[in-house]
């Protein structure tokens, strides 16, 4: 399938990357960043929101550092999953992404910034023409959203990346940079509705790395993923749970979800409620039920939303199974 035309820029350093971005912005040329390419390139082949310029971060060596607490944006998921330095909750999510071949290319930054997905959107140009396009890629037609018809202001495409919930649960901080400088924020604050806005990145800004807090090794957890097949498939629902125990008692608990809405969910309130009055298995059930209630998937992925919602409860409970064991 022939790529639509765009100019590829391959900077060797962050500085060069930002200066290319600046140049393009100042001449009013739209552009995308590309990291591993496993998300952007198939979308481009299908002519989904193609920009005239693309800046590749593949050659930027500053972004590949991987330590216990520092994960560069250009770290490949394969390396993240295989590394001994990676927290088990993060590697559990990383090794569940797509297939081993995809993970050889795909990056941490690319996964966090994964474009939202919808079966009305992730289709070829011919196909989308046959439905008169959709809001997320309207090709200048002001087309309606095909999931929630009769409106073209909200996109409900689903965020189906695996890494975010695990990182959120571990209290990760995400670091962004642009020519104007750097900024950091808790992972949960990075994402921003709707399905087209996706996150807080400004034009010319990229994710440089993620850091984990120093106490990360004290956290344990699990990531549960719902999908049809054990390879290739995006999460139809994903639940990460992390906990900290002090003297055998649960002292802290975090839950985050993905694959259910246009941004990942961080279920602070739900986990606090049960944590305040911890009653073991009963609390896990309560937590699972409240997480289920808090998510509102729509019909735009492989499994129907009612099923995905019900499974959130099962996944949450299963992710908590280690929590009820004495060992951790």
């Amino acid at each position: 399938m022939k790529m639509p035309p765009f100019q590829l820029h391959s900077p060797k350093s962050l500085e060069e990357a930002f200066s290319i971005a600046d140049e393009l912005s100042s001449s009013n040329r739209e552009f995308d960043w590309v990291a591993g390419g496993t998300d952007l390139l198939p979308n481009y082949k299908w002519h989904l929101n193609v920009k005239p310029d693309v800046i590749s971060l593949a050659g930027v060596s500053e972004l590949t550092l991987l330590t216990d607490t520092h994960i560069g944006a250009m770290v490949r998921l394969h390396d993240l999953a295989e590394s001994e330095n990676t927290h088990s909750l993060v590697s559990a999510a990383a090794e569940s992404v797509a297939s081993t071949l995809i993970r050889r290319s795909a990056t941490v930054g690319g996964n966090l910034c994964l474009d939202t997905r919808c079966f009305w959107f992730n289709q070829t140009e011919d196909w989308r023409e046959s439905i008169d396009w959709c809001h997320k890629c309207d090709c200048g037609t002001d087309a309606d959203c095909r999931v929630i018809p009769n409106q073209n202001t909200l996109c409900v495409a689903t965020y189906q990346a695996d890494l975010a919930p695990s990182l959120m649960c571990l209290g990760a901080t995400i670091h962004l940079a642009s020519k104007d400088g750097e900024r950091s924020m808790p992972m949960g604050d990075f994402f921003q509705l709707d399905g087209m806005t996706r996150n807080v990145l400004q034009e010319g800004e990229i994710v440089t790395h993620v850091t984990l807090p120093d106490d990360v090794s004290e956290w344990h957890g699990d990531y549960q993923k719902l999908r049809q097949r054990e390879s290739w498939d995006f999460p139809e629902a994903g639940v990460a749970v992390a906990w900290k125990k002090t003297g055998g008692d649960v002292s802290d608990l975090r839950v985050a979800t993905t694959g259910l809405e246009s941004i990942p969910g961080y279920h602070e309130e739900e986990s606090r409620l049960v944590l305040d009055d911890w009653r073991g298995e009963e609390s896990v059930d309560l937590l699972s039920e409240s997480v289920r209630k808090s998510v509102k998937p729509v019909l735009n992925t492989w499994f129907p939303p009612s099923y995905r919602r019900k499974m959130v409860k099962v996944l949450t409970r299963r992710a908590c199974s280690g929590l009820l064991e004495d060992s951790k």
Partner: protein
Amino acid sequence: MWMTPQIPRVIRIQDFRGEKLGEEDSDEMVGYRQQPGKLPFSKPGSGGKNQFSEPRDESSIPESQGGSKAQPWGDHRHDEIVSGRVIGKPTALVDSRWKVTGQAQYGDDIRLPGELVGRIIRSPHHYARVLSIDASKALDLPGVLAVATGQDATSAFGVLPVTKDEHAMAQDKVRHVGDLVACVAAVDEASAREACRLIEVEYEVLDSIHDMRDGLEDSDLPIHDRGKYHIGESNVQKRVFQEFGNVEDMRDSMASHSSDWLFAGANHGFTEPHAVVAHWDPSGRLTLYTPQQVPHYLHRALADVLEVPMHQINVYRTFVGGGFGGKSDPFPHEMCAAILARKTGKPVRINFDREEVFWVNRGRHPSRIGMSIHSDSEGRISGIETDALIDGGAFASFGHVTTYYNGVLHTAPYEIGGFHYTGARVWTNKPASGAMRGHGAVNSRCAVEVGLDDICEQLNVDPIDFRLANLLPPHSSTITGFRVTSIGMRECLEKVREASGWDEKFRKMPLGRGIGVGCGFFISGSGLPIHWDPNKFPHATVHLKIDMDGGVTIHTGAADIGQGSDTVVAQSVAEVLGLPLDMIRVRSRETDTSPVDLGSYSSRVTFMNANAAISAAMEIRAELIKATSEITGAPEKKLVIGDRRIFRKDDPAVGVSYLEALHKSQEDRGALVSSGSYRTPPMGRVHKGAAAGLAPAYSFSAYVAEVEVDVETGQTKVLKVWAAHDCGKALNPLSVEGQIIGSCHMGMGQVLSEEMRYGRTGHLINPDLLDYKIPTVHEMPQVFPIIVESNDPEGPFGAKEAGEGPLLPILPAVVNAVYDATGVRVSELPISPDRLYKAIEKKCRKDGVSSPTEMKTPRISHSELQEKIVERGKSHSERDIERRRGKEPSPYHNGALFGLDPEVPGDEQDSRWTAVVTPSEEYLESPGLAGSAWKHVERRKRGDSQ
């Protein structure tokens, strides 16, 4: 790099009389140097890479020929030509080295100098009239050489002559999203795609039909118009009504099962997208390079559409990257490439994006099947009632046949008291359905086998014992009159029962673990060819040519699509002539050089083509034996063929090498050539539709699947499959096992995850390999292939098919295992987790439990009937062994189990037994879903014929 062990190689020169000469003697040249009058022309050697003839492998020679190979299923007509060389031995595919080195050329690997890139403009509408096509902007684009539309080729085509309803491109209407409207040829892909963008097409959108049930109704504008043969004003493309046996009494039974099934459509999912290259050579002939299963039918269709004689066309079959029925129609894009190449005078290549593969489709029909099965108090299957409505999509393709197959292919392996079938195929505005591995038999077979499981549950008998007590014997006739020869069904069931530990597991495992059985029955070749009168033309023809080098060239038109047909034909010839495979070369690619073979469909190739090859090789064999007899003076009858040596059976020292005999035969005429062919014998009965499902032999299979169901999520994992298949004789066991395991994989996809899913707007929402969920390596269970060899009297060396039949049993085996694991009986495929979970929730409500983990699973306590059917099974087993060994067993017609005279068809001896192919008025008062298609009157019979 890997380690390369050194192969010790002794270099020596050896004379052809067998005396070894040391290296120091190498100056003493002997051999072929001809010096008339001085030296005699040396005797030729044995040929082949290994100069020494191998001793006869007695373990591969049948007992009837003095070898040690046991023949529990009796003698075979090919016993005396068995040389023990290659047949029955695991054999690498003869083309596998091309495949593993990247040298195999598939459709998109044919690159001709100066070629253009073709692209197709496709309909964005489900159903629309094409009002105008303006290609002026596209033609103005530099690099664009031609645009073609429906006006460039107005002749209709279709794989079946009775239902030609396709065109190269839209004539007046487009019938599904993705239907062909026009095509362009340009110097490169970017220009071709840009040209497609610039072509302006004006449409008038029409009301489209998406639900197959709507296709049964009258429509203002049916998707096709069949003129006077049109059925009412509906979209019914084909309808079938059949009643056989004692239909009247069958519902009056001890146990009845009734279920309404919904099967999603499935796609072949081969890895190679369609691709074609067309080239009109300087002499004005067309060569079309394409990965095709049916080069011959394409050849005919091209001649029709392009309006040139067939001899002006050479269809070149490239390597085929998977077919499974999805490359067995002549396709419009093949016509487009030829039209564009003719217009531009340059080669044109069209290769598909994956989405286009789904648009051309021809996959398994989405189906609604009503299945009722009845059993009497003796545990006999007193009746099967099937009502199958199948969704054909926008074109007929093989659908005429599929409509029959959904019924007639479950009239065996069981002896049944009555059979009622109504089938209808409708056009809808979807990509066309067609033939896919297990053509027409898969869905209704699943419904039958699941129904039997339910019947056994009601009767409290073991489902394997129940089946064993209801099998047709060898050399019998089904209720519809199919001639069944060899049957290994019983052995298949017995073997999987033992291997799987069935008796310790069935209805005994904990919640979430289950085991299930399913059987299958499939044609081994279609009795009737699509185009030809079988009494006049053969189905398959093979030519052999052997020149002085001793190598055998096989010319065959059989299309190797990865199943190994080139290998099987090479093996067959090698076996008969006693040659190693390295002396055989297969030329099967071009219609210019290949005799006609009808193609790789209906599981016909091994059966028919190997039979043709054997008869061609037997001609050569006779010549070699005659020559040997002349040289040695031994009578021909005493001679046998071993490895490149022909000798006296009773005195192996007397004989000559293959090359010596060959050269003797060639003395007067040069190269030996021969031709062999295969045609089916006259078979079957004479009612309308009697030919559908007729085959010279049938394959049988029985699988047991063990599954694990996560009852909290509805996810099913198949852990192990014991898969027994009766292929008559495994000519190449490696390939047979590969076909069995591969069939498991494909069938498992259909039962668990694969579906062509149409959204609320009628669009196919998953035309890609991410959302068309083909099982990955992680979903694959461990498969234990078990080969049963029933020694078919007509099959080549006893062989029958192994490519399609093995797919059938996996679906019901898994469905039945899911029931065993959960107590949930599903009737909608695929059993995706969400569907199963919904059913589990329903069962929880019914059981009055709050969590799926508290569900009850089915248990069994045998009834009195169990002992009775076990006894019957035992006595049938003895009956069958006797019948399969007998030289000419007496006739056995379905019905004997119900007390009729086995020697006469039921309807000829009992007035309650019928054979009816049109519905009564009484039936039409409350027909089944598909049966309601018969409410329409054909236009010609309405008196308003057009």
